[in-house]
């Protein structure tokens, strides 16, 4: 399977997706509400994207962008799925039912960026202390000890 075939196939499962080819891999931006169904189609459909190797979030000061890096053990092509969520009350559906690794990766994003993953089986802090206030990887986070100044 080549990048071209993936590019032609994506609109058939997500007609509203925005494709971006400027980077190394194909970037697909979709609405957060469509994420779950789109991810299910990617994993169980023709593309067989069974390997979720990176989940993270980027703070753009106006909004947050969830970034999912996906690959397949069969054809080894990687794609990037993105979904923009608002910064005040970020919410997105969990993917832990599709890929088990998402459980831990989403917990990390939850504590570092404050993104609420709907229907997550165990959404608790993983790395930070239980009583930690704020979301450290957001751009406006003020570190009380002032170790890091951006």
């Amino acid at each position, binding site marked *: 399977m080549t990048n071209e075939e993936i590019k032609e196939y994506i609109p058939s499962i997500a007609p509203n997706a925005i494709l971006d080819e400027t980077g190394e891999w194909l970037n697909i931006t979709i609405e957060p509400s469509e994420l779950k169904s789109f991810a299910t189609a990617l994993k169980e459909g023709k593309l067989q994207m069974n390997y979720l190797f*990176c989940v993270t979030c980027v703070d753009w000061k106006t909004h947050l962008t969830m970034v999912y890096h996906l690959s397949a053990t069969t054809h080894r092509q990687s794609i990037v799925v993105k979904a923009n969520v608002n910064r005040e009350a970020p919410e997105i559906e969990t993917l832990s039912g599709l890929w088990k690794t998402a459980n831990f990766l989403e917990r990390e994003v939850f504590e570092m960026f404050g993104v609420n993953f709907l229907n997550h089986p165990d959404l608790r802090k993983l790395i930070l202390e239980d009583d930690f206030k704020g979301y450290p990887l957001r751009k406006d986070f003020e570190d009380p000890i002032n170790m890091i100044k951006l």
Partner: protein
Amino acid sequence: MYNQTEVIKDTSELGAEGELIINMGPQHPATHGVLHLVVTLNGETIKKIEPHLGYIHRSIEKMCESLTYRQFIYVTSRMDYLSSHINNLGCALLVEKGMQIEVPERAKYVRVILSELTRIASHELWLGAMAMDLGAFTPFFYAFREREMITDIMEETCGARLTMNYIVPGGLMYDIHPDFQKKVKAFITQFKAKVTEYEDLVTNNIIFQSRTKGVGVLTAEDAISFGCTGPVARASGVSCDIRKLYPYDVYDKVEFDEVIETAGDSFARYMVRVKEMNQSIRIIEQLIDTIPEGDFVGKTKNVLKLPKGEFYTRVETARGEFGIYVVSEGGTTPHRIKFRSPGFSNLSALNHMAAGSKIGDLMATMGTLDLVIPDIDR
């Protein structure tokens, strides 16, 4: 959510009769670092394992947002300290890819040799420590005897034994020591003569075999679903060697086999690492005599600026796929940087692998995951 500082919960608080919660760590001889596992037991059988992380969390990703592309490499040595060369290499490759920097052949050869030496050193340490976790103390000294030779080579060439910071964008920080080739060859001779001792001491040891065979089984489907990479996934029959799939530097010029086992148990993970050491030796042998003459570092600007965009590189560390994701806005520092650490994903499979087995087998399962805690916490 419950308090992490609680030592042992009163069993009467829990619904199930005979259920006991044991806090393993954060200070525990077998976790090799500050990892805290909350183990729920029913008698001797493990019902659930919950890892609590963060005891060595330094927020390296946030730190990197204020560091330049020359500086952030030095922080990555402190993540997976047993694969520091390979972490540095991943960062250097990312900057080189983003800025299209030409790397001299000499540097590429030396980087691959150093990466493989690092892999052997890491596996040696793991072998000794893992055997010690299972109660065999002697292999630790045997493994460290060979590992010491590698750290000596590193000390001579890089000036450091653990956090090397030797690989920089464009090549190497300075040229290799004149004795480098001689010492590496001496190491290869020593290693080949002594590797059979590991086989006799550990591999063919009946106690070791009965403690690891069939313990902590991970199927191929689960290994993929949990995002496992490196020896953990390869022991379950998943082909995932980055050096083979997405070759970097001179890995496409050397011949080596991707070691794959299919049993998926602790013994298979052990075998993968032991065989990988031999493959690493094979790679070094092909390169050590043919290191080309020439520059050791390419031409780079003093101030590195990555163009606007997103970059991702991956390298194969001793623990699996180490990925670096950088979002650049065109400045001298990254807007966002994410380190995809292999240990983090491998650890997430621990509960699945150990649930249902006996508490005594947990050491074998966890030992063969080869966890490095600073790599998981970042």
